[in-house]
């Protein structure tokens, strides 16, 4: 299972300046093609020689994929190739959707945020070290999970929805986008389709080979934010070993619709504890129609961790998730 560190495999590089050109290339090269945006995920795979695509399509020069635009209904649409720094610094993002700005601001480091894109952040592959090292696990097309054994190194793996794969979603912005009811805009040569963020991320029971609903020959072109949660009380927290340049051990994003002291609607989403950002629907329901007090918070937090199945080294994630959910309710501010 060792990686061979000979010369990097040559690939054919395309740098289209128009989206249609990129889509045509994807149609032509199909599963041979690898889409490159900021490269923060791509280069790790290529440097390790764990992925050796014959074709790389760099979409960084396609202006249509960048920028923040107002939508007809007053929401925002963010081009998938918009850098995380641009997202953070955009005045309308920080004004209307500070939850997303905060989450984006916790990604990695300033240098990575300057280069990494919002689309890349949500579409990135899992960081399970077995999978990343090229081990032939289920997710890689094999027939075993190396991370889910009594002796595996699985401190950073999942506590929910573990199936034949126990890897986690590493994205910091994904929980925020799910909480904001975002919609992912996807294009291919066949046309356009729109997928709610909550359905964009896949659990291993649905598809063990892919982290997202992106199919071959498709590009994520934009992310649309509706007005429903704009300006609402929100909370984001990411817990990691380091204060910078680290993936979440667990994260939480919340958005609450509160009036007259009563929760009318709620979004509670946790990251780093499942293969996808996990919307805690049962916990949300327990909060709706109630005021926020110690009892409701405790009850909601208890529901949030029901069904958690820790691995050998990550029982702490159950406690951590519970505590983060409490904070996501009590700490939500407009």
């Amino acid at each position, binding site marked *: 299972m060792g990686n061979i560190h000979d010369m990097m495999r040559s690939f054919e590089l395309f740098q289209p300046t128009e989206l249609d050109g990129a889509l045509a290339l994807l149609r032509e090269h199909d599963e041979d093609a690898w889409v490159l945006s900021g490269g923060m995920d791509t280069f790790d795979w290529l440097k390790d020689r764990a992925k050796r695509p014959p074709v790389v399509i760099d979409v960084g020069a396609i202006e249509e994929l960048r920028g923040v635009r107002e939508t007809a209904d007053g929401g925002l649409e963010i081009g998938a190739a918009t850098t995380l720094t641009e997202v953070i610094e955009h005045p309308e993002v920080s004004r209307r959707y500070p939850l997303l700005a905060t989450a984006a601001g916790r990604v990695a480091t300033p240098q990575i945020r300057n280069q990494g894109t919002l689309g890349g952040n949500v579409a990135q592959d899992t960081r399970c070290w077995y999978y990343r090292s090229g081990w032939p696990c289920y997710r890689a097309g094999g027939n075993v999970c190396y991370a889910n054994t009594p002796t*595996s190194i699985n401190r950073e793996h999942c506590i929910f929805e573990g199936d034949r794969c126990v890897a986690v979603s590493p994205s910091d912005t994904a929980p925020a986008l799910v909480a904001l009811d975002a919609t992912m805009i996807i294009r291919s040569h066949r046309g356009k389709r729109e997928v709610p963020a909550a359905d964009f991320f896949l659990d291993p029971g649905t598809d063990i080979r892919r982290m997202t609903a992106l199919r071959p020959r498709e590009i994520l072109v934009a992310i649309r934010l509706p007005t429903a949660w704009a300006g609402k009380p929100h909370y984001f927290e990411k*817990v990691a070993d*380091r204060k*910078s340049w680290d993936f979440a051990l667990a994260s939480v994003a919340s958005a609450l619709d509160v009036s007259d002291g009563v929760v009318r609607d709620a979004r509670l989403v946790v990251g780093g504890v499942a293969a996808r950002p996990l919307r805690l629907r049962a916990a949300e329901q327990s909060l709706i129609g109630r005021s926020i007090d110690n009892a409701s918070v405790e009850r909601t937090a208890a529901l949030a961790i029901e069904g958690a199945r820790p691995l050998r*080294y990550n029982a702490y994630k159950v406690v*951590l998730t519970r505590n983060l959910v409490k904070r996501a309710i009590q700490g939500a501010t407009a």
Partner: protein
Amino acid sequence: MKRRKAADLGLEEEDLVLISEYCGGGFGSKNEGVPTDFIPALLSRKLGGRPVMMRVTREEEFYFGRARPGIQGCAKIGFRADGRVTAMELCMVIDSGAIRGQGDHAAAANYASLGYQPEAMRFKGLTVATNTPPRGAQQAPGSLQMVSMIDPLMGRAARELGIDRLEIMRINAPRGRAVYGPQRTNITSAFVEEAIQRGRELFRWDEKVQLRGPSEGAKVIGVGAALGPYSAGDIGFDGLLIIRPDGRLTVHQGIGNLGSHAVLDTAMAAADVLGVSGDAVDVVWGNPSRGAPWSSRQGGTRTTHAHTRANHAAAMDARRKLQEIAADRLGGSPEDYEVALGRVYRQASPAIGMTLGEAAEEAMRLGGRYSGQVLPEDIDPMTAAAAGVIAGQGLVGVAKDNYGRDGSTYSFTVGFCMVEVDRETGEVDVKEYLAVADCGTIMHPRNLSGQLLGGGVRGMSIALLEKWDFDPNWGICATRRMYTAKPATILDVPLEPQWAALDIPDPDTPVGAKGIAESTIGAGAGAVIDAIADALGGRIPARRPIRPDIILSLIEGVDSGHRPLQTHA
């Protein structure tokens, strides 16, 4: 290093030129040379002398590089009511990796004996080989592990005895020519009590301890301290310098530039003896073909002590020669003459004298020992060869460090730390850190600060973040990348850590300077761990690094998954 490499390659020493102008860290583990160093040389020879570069990836480094030996163990310590350690029993198991036994646990026992001065002590050590990469000395081998393990126990004892944390450190601190180890070896000096007092004042310890306890929300403040001891100097090496007709002083160094700039700072010991300002000093280093005297190896914090002494000795030799030349030319006896401000002059009548450049010209005319053509008999052959490179070009000062000393040289760093622990997430915020050094005469304040704070930060990184994991079934390392091995980032340590040093000379060395590089890391690690334990009400996390999962598992009583004597997980 040159001598060792020549032997390993089967070459005569004079047939090997080892150029090492800039060398990074990790030198302790490379002190003995690494077999892979020879691969490019041997391949080049096979290829008829063509240059060969060997490039090692980060992943490959994890197969044959050197890591710190991990230590686990048990300690039983007895205290009097006033906090004095009456007895200490240590049992340590060391993970030696795949190749050979490492001595970190034995060193740890010696450092415990030195740092806490127990009235009675028993130590048992066991070495275990594991199917993991080789081990070697990393910064402060044995001392870092010991301080990380034992100092928090001193903190617990202070809490249970109702004694101030610094008082329990003070009452057990080594003093003067303290003794340590089973052979009861003495050290040359220790001013730990002074360092503790200086730190108490600078850190405002008495105010900080009032802040302990809940701060905001689920966060709680803890305050801690630790004493890091480490060996601090070697002796018996050679110094070589030349004063040229232009009056400039050139100090030839056999040591290289590791980034700490001791290669430059130790040269100033010669400049100070000869009264030459820094801008009139050149330092030759990195290429033995330009004349490199026999020098200490650069690991184990030897350099500052060894080469301030060696350069001082060479400068004293040059000074005597200057006095003799002046007396010969200008009358009187050598003792009538002083050397300062670029001149050698009669003390009673400063106008009578000559510049150093004039003296150098005279030395060239006189030849013999004055210009390096006749050498002392006790210098190393390597130094003699180096002197041959510069002989006849000026006034040569060359001498072996024969100053001797009574005991071993050690330096001490006391670390002071305040943390804020989030009891709901397990995260630790290191708020403040101060390092106070007992390292003898300060040679270069800025470089000293780099050592103190750099070592302290490294200690915090090891205490809180860094480790490697191996899948025990497949024997493959899980943490080969920067983002998985997790060295501390600038945001994980205090943005403005502080430092101070006593500047009290060691009495057994003419310049008074002791090394400092390695006592710093244990101070950082021990202080932050002690502070975390304080924040957790005296509960000490049993594993390092202390990451959020370890703290949460301790607080909530959940299974962390780790088992005693388990390692690399």
